[in-house]
């Protein structure tokens, strides 16, 4: 993934945010969107565990575009698997990439543009969107598939793939903080020798690792509540790791040129898409 969308591509995209159709088709050619489409339907025929690894990479490099919605439409919408058709969806009250997408799932009546905090994710808001829940049979769920028994395309899978992106981001910001702490010198040596910095980094790793096992296990089991739990831990890891990464970077992290803010803003946006943490917590509590 880093080969297709490296740091130079990222910074170029920040300065001129638009959907890169060429990149999208390259991802399609590489089988990214068709990863879970059965082989006899022309896909790669892999499962959620592999999809989660792919989206972790997408989160790590801050891949722009409605990748989750396009991925989930791959077996369903003509051209989505190949990256020719860009698909987005109404996620809670928000729709990312509405103007750039070819197909929109969900009801966008009354959608108004939002000046998005994330320079890499244009947003529209649908103020009267019905509340999305994690119920796979929710009629408002834009991901409800034609076959109600196919677990792959229900809202909790979208949520899990976003959790995987959050995990990739949390891992990357942890690494970035560690790199900075190893090399930035203050007070006569690398700042990473101070316990205050070390312990920030250690807590970042712990958050990322806990999110990792939660995301991977939810992918293996396909369980709805496991996905809700993974989402909670991954949202938390992505947002808090980005903030701690900024703290470790100090003033240098506060510049536009640093990537830290891109991770933080995207983590905020991802956490704001779909049913959100409140609903996930309620779902998990209800099952106790």
């Amino acid at each position, binding site marked *: 993934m880093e080969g297709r969308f490296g740091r130079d591509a990222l910074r170029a995209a920040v300065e001129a945010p638009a959907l890169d159709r060429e990149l999208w088709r390259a991802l399609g050619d590489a089988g990214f969107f068709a990863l879970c489409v059965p082989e006899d339907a022309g896909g790669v025929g892999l499962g959620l565990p592999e999809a989660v690894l792919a989206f972790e990479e997408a989160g790590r490099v801050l891949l722009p575009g409605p990748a989750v919605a396009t991925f989930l439409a791959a077996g369903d919408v003509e051209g989505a698997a190949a990256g020719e058709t860009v698909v987005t969806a109404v996620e809670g009250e928000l729709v990312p990439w509405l103007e750039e997408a070819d197909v929109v799932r969900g009801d966008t009546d009354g959608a108004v543009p939002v000046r998005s905090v994330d320079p890499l994710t244009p947003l529209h808001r649908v103020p009267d969107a019905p509340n999305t829940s994690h119920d796979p049979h929710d009629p408002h769920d834009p991901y409800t598939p034609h076959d109600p028994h196919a677990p792959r395309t229900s809202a909790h899978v979208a949520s899990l793939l976003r959790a995987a992106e959050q995990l990739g981001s949390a891992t990357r910001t942890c690494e970035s903080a560690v790199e900075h702490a190893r090399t930035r010198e203050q007070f006569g040596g690398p700042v990473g*020798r101070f*316990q205050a910095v070390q312990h920030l980094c250690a807590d970042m790793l712990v958050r990322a690792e806990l999110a990792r096992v939660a995301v991977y296990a939810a992918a293996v089991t396909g369980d709805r509540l496991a996905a809700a739990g993974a989402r909670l831990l991954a949202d938390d890891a992505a947002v808090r790791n980005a903030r701690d990464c900024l703290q470790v970077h100090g003033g240098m992290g506060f510049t536009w040129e640093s990537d830290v803010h891109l991770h933080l803003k995207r983590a905020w946006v991802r956490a704001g898409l779909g049913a959100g943490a409140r609903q996930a917590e309620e779902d998990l509590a209800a099952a106790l």
Partner: protein
Amino acid sequence: MDLTYTEEEESFRAGLRDWLADVLPALPAGPAPDDWPGRRAYDTGWQRMLYDAGYGEVHWDAAPTLRLIFLEETEKAGAPYVGANFVGLLHAGPTIAAEGTPEQRARWLPPVLRGDEVWCQGFSEPDAGSDLASLRTRAWRDGDCYVVSGSKIWTSHAEVADWCELLVRTTPVSAEVPKHRGITWLALPMDAAGITVRPLRTLAGSTEFAEVILDEVRVPVANRVGAEDDGWRVSMVTLSFERGTAFVGEVVACRRLLGELAGEARANGRWDDAALRRRLGRLSAEFTALWRLTQWNVSEARRTGGVPGTGGSVFKLRYSHARQELYDAAADVLGPGALDLERPWTLERLSALSYTIAAGTSQIQRNIVAERVLGLPKGR
């Protein structure tokens, strides 16, 4: 992430479940948690039953996955906690299994598995807490014995134990010998002359810990496990192993507790508080993930041949705080009842306060993660 089990593992699980379903209802009620002589009789009796039923060897001879299944199923079934056998089964035993001679294994392991002999741990000292390697209990050779003098603290079950796994300094620290060298691992018979056991009362009011004072106690050289001066390595191998799996039963218990808390909150009306409800929901995600992390650590151990490595520190760091948050949430569910020692969870809340301190404080664990996992420069 491998969450599947082999047929052999599933059949082991099924057999164990059946046996537990059969045996548990007939067990007598356990003694009070701080009745140590009572606990010894109870726990060792239970251990003997496991041994006779063929589950004795699971503690350290079986594959890590079988051990995981064993700990998961016994906890899920509500079987007695290992209690006074904790050190023997989960610490001294694995050390002897890994580092002892065939004679030592034959002498010490079967009685642990049968529950005939109880072990305690003599590691910490009053002046060597977080800095365990600075321990000062001295041992010197006199013929075929070591003569040991010093004092140990936080020795659980010392009053009822038959043996103590003891770390002593056999070579003084010097310019040539750093503090991690010069330490030796000994099996100390607790009935030897010169041992004084002083019960130590914890903030929870219980006395499962003791201070052990050693005054020229003679320990046969044959009781040494591993080489002289190599005791730090001998004990650390086990410690790192235990961090990965010693809490399996507890995590299962925490998940059960969350269900009990929800039940109590639904009964007493606090379930209407959305903030409390959501907090329990989030804790449920935490403990499910901690359970997955345990499985992950065990499967890593299987892959690498026994040592789960630094995953243990990651687990220990998060688990100890999550456990404290769990009991804080329990206090919120109980309301004023959280101030009542008769109510469930109040004593456990007090005990949970030790989790961020015992077996390496959270501060030490973060250092380990930062330096050994993340490769940050040696802390200052």
